[in-house]
Structure formats: C-alpha cells, structure tokens
C-alpha cells in the first residue's frame, strides 16, 4: 500500500537532487556523487518505508535509520527537509558555523539523526546493537535500517559486524549498500576489488537481495520483500549510478568528494529542472 504515486515520488527525488546541488554550491565543499545517487533510496525510505514522524523525531515507536556513510549526509538532510523535519531554507547552512547540518552528521545537533558518523565502517555495528536492544526490549514492531557505501566495506569493522548480525539472526535489521562503484581514489574494483559483494555476504550467512537503486518503485518492493525474511539479516545490494541525475557527473569518480562550482551547478540544476531536457524549466 503506497502513500504516494510514482510520479509524486519522482518529484520528491528530483527536489532532493536539486537541493543537494544548491547546498553543495553554497557550502563550497562536500561530496556530490553519492548523495545524488542515493536520492531514490532516501525517497523510498522516508516517504514509503520508514515509520517516523517528522514533527516528533524522538517518537518512541519510530524505525531507526543509521547513516553509516556519513559523507553522503546532504541527501539525508535534503530528504528530511522534503519530509518536513525542518524548513528547506536551513539546507543552505550546510557546513557553516553554528549550523545543525554539520559536514558529517552529529546526532546531538539535529533531532532525527540516530547517530554520529563520518569515519567509515561503524554504522552496521551500531545498527546491530540497536536491533539487539529492540529485541531485548521486546519492541518487535520497530526496525533498524542502515545505509552503507560500497567503498566503506573495505573497513574491517563492517565484517566484524556482519558476523555478529548473522550469529544473532537479526532479522529486524536491513542493510543497504549503495553500490555505485566509486570511492575517492577511483573505481572500487581498482582501489580494492569488492566483487562479489553478494557472494561475500551470503558466505557470512546473510540473505542478499539486489535491486536497481535508482528505481524508486523497485527499491520499495525490495525493502518490503526484505522485511518478510526471517532468521537472517538482509542486505539489499542497491546498484546505483554515481552522480545519478546529472549527466556530466554520472559514473565519474572525480565527483565523489568535491562540490560543483557555480557554472557546474547551473548546468546540473538546468538538467534536473528540465528532467534532462524533456520538460521546460519554470526557472528559464
């Protein structure tokens, strides 16, 4: 049962992408490719999947979303604003002195964040601790979701956590890996080969689902399927296109860790606002 039509979800995702570009342009630093390619997954989570209340971020029945790849936080901030956690104009304070929107997320500064992250590889462990505590608390109607980057799983802490999740049969935990194939130094398969991520997690006794991470409907369906899996933690390997939505950024690892300049931002926003030239932008 969906809350929104496919068209409406596409509009949310597109707004999120536009806001990511505008935030990064204003901040003059930050990561671009990951946030753009994650916009569809965040749209699926915040508008269809997560049990949450933007007006009551500490709601005791809420699902928990752990952002393990903290550098991609602009997509989370933009989605939170789109969902009504805070006014969109606050997005332009990203990375500025006194802002609640720190360059890497800090839980204590912004209600709605479940943890503080940036150094990679520790989100899955925290999510596992949360999932185990939910079980101990007998809070069986709540779930934990954790989003990781693909390069992030170079970190040993991830594999310590992967063993732990399987041992404890944490079926109230769903991990999503943003398989965009890039990291700062290049393509993941050149920096430190990861394939087959699916086989690796299966060998660790996880249930693995794969999905086109840039297809919102597919992402929703896959997460709903993941919710039905019992006695195993589930990994959703979400294949995405790095920099998705902006042609000159797509699949280019040099956009992993830098923001657009004003010319590039203008070009990117034009593309997003015209849906790749298919419609006329109201900004024109």
């Amino acid at each position, binding site marked *: 049962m969906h809350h929104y039509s496919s068209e409406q979800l596409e509009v949310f995702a597109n707004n999120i992408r536009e806001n990511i570009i505008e935030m990064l342009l204003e901040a003059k630093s930050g990561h671009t490719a990951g946030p753009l390619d994650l916009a569809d997954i965040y749209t699926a989570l915040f508008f269809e999947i997560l049990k949450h209340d933007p007006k009551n971020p500490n709601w005791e029945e809420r699902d*928990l979303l*752990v952002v393990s790849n903290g550098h991609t936080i602009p997509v989370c901030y933009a989605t939170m604003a789109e969902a009504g956690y805070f006014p969109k104009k606050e997005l332009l304070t990203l990375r500025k002195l006194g802002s609640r929107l720190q360059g890497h997320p*800090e*839980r*204590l500064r912004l209600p709605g964040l*479940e*943890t*503080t*992250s*940036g*150094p990679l*590889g*520790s989100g899955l*462990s*925290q*999510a*596992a*601790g*949360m*999932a*185990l*505590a*939910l079980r*101990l*608390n007998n*809070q069986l109607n709540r779930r934990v979701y954790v989003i990781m980057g693909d390069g992030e799983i170079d970190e*040993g*802490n991830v594999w*310590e*956590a992967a*063993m*732990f999740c399987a041992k404890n049969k944490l079926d109230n935990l769903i991990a999503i890996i943003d398989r965009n194939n890039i990291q700062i130094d290049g393509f993941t398969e050149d920096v430190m080969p990861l394939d087959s991520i699916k086989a690796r997690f299966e060998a660790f006794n996880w249930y693995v689902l794969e999905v086109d991470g840039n297809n919102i409907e597919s992402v929703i369906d896959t997460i709903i399927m993941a919710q039905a899996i019992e006695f195993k933690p589930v990994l959703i390997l979400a294949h995405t296109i790095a920099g998705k939505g902006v042609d000159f950024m797509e699949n280019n690892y040099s956009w992993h860790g830098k923001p657009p300049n004003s010319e590039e931002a203008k070009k990117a926003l034009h593309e997003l606002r015209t849906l790749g030239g298919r419609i006329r932008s109201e900004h024109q």
Partner: protein
Amino acid sequence: MDYQNYLIEDITKDLQKESLRAGFGRGLLSAGEIDSNVVALCADLTESTQMKLFADRFPDRFVEIGIAEQNLVTVGSGMSALGKIPFVTSYAAFSPGRNWEQIRTTICLNDRPVKIVGSHAGISVGPDGATHQMLEDIVLMRTLPNMVVLAPGDSIEAQKMTLAMAQDKRPNYMRLAREATPIFTKAEYEFKIGPAYLLNKGQDISLIATGTMTYQALVLAELLFKDGIEAEVIHVPTIKPLDKETILKSIKKTKIAITLEEAQINGGFGSAITELASEFYPIPILRIGINDHFGESGDPNELLEKFGLTASKIRLKLHTFYSSNKT
C-alpha cells in the same frame, strides 16, 4: 571533605589481596540486579575479565562479541541508543587500544553512556609481556571530550565504582589490573565518581596517586615518616574530571609533589596533575610511572621493581628530588 575514614585502620598490616577485576565482576553482578537495562558485552575474555558472574546470572543480557574490539564498542553504542547500559570489556591493550576512533566518534562525540572496562592494564600484567601490558590507555581516554576516566585502587573500590558507573549518564572508562593487590579501602564507605580521597594528612610533600599505585604511596608515606618527612597521600580514582580543589589545596600546603601511576607518565596521570599545577599553582613535581618505555615479560613484582614502581625504589628517587627542590 575529609575522607580519612575511607582508609582501613592500619595499612602496615599484612593486607588481604584481591584483583581489581574480581571486584568489577561482583559490582557488575550487583549493577545487573539493580537495573535490568545493564547489559554486558565481552570480546572472548569472559572469564579473565570476570564477566562470567554476570553472564551466568543473566545469560540473555550477556552478549558474546568474539575477538572483535571495534564491533565491541560500536554494538555497545547502538544498544545504549535504546536505553541499555552496556559494560563492554576486553583487555585494555585491545579496548581502548585498538578501537579508539570508534570510541571517539560513536561514544564520545555521540555522547552515549557506554561503560568501557579495560582489564590487564599496567606492567603488572606480568609474563604476557609488552604487547599485553597496556600503558597508554589513560592518555588515550583522557583526551576525549565527554569521557570520564577511572582507575580504582583496590577490588573493593572497583566493585563500588562499577555500581557508580551504571548510574552515571556519561561515557566512562575504567582501567583494571590483573594481579591481586592489597585491599586498603573500607567496604562500608561510600564511593563517588569525582572526588579525590585524602588518605593521609601531612604538610611536607603531596603523594598523588591513582589506581593500585595508591597502595605504594601509602607504604611510601610510612617509610618517609621514619625519614622525618610527613607526606600527604591523595588517592585519585577519578582521573577525569580531576578533583582540582582537593589536589590544589594539598599542593598549596606542601609546595612539592610526586605523582604515581602504573602507566606512561607522558600524557598519563602524571601529565594530568602537572597540567593542573602548572596552570594554577606551579610547583616541582616528580612523575613516577613508566617513562617512554614498553614493558616486558616477568613476574609482576620483579617488573614493578625493575621499573621503579615499588615504595622502596620510589623512596630513593624521592629523597634526591625532595632535597634539591623542597623550599
């Protein structure tokens, strides 16, 4: 505040000995009985960290992590997000030795009340050698904002400290030692996180000690008394935040001090005291501890002797320092 009642009547007697970790094990069991949110996580060292008492009594609240210290503290952080009070235990060389960044980000910056317990700290670990003799844990933990750093003096205090930790809302680190050491505090006296404890009054020199080295300081004070020096002994179980008032009051009176710890003096407890003194009341301070060295295998007592951490060894060093600096 006068804490002289904290000390047993006569420390020159042959004192009963017990390891700090044994006290921790009992304290954790009591904490678990008092509060059902207390959970215990261990990295494959359940017996030797003395978590077994808790694990046997509360199997559902005991979490075996395996040999994975990064996972140990981050799972702890996650559990604390749901109201749990996790005691996460390993040897200090591994936790906080290996997982410092995870502690920094997911516990301190994230301000989660995880209770990190590092057993087998100090050179008195003995035969296991330098790899397992953690000497840098105090400095690693005391530089972290939000972290409370604790070092009990004996097993009785370790037991009470564990209960106090379970009620404290901040991230805590407690360092424990392996060997059985003399019990010099009274079981009935209340322990609080925060205060330094004045155990012996004197006006000539301040002996400021933490952990099991407080016992050496007490013995040293007895020896110095025979030498005509009246030493004040201050026991500092809470290394961070420091009880500035008690420490400054003592050094303003004696105008000379030594610090005692079974850890690196560079950045460790000795540094903490000298930083305080240099800022508010500069006086000559001799730091006793490990000076930019690793330990080695050996019998614990041989090692304490070799590294100059026994009362008789410190006495010799102290006289030179005292005669050239006491005004």
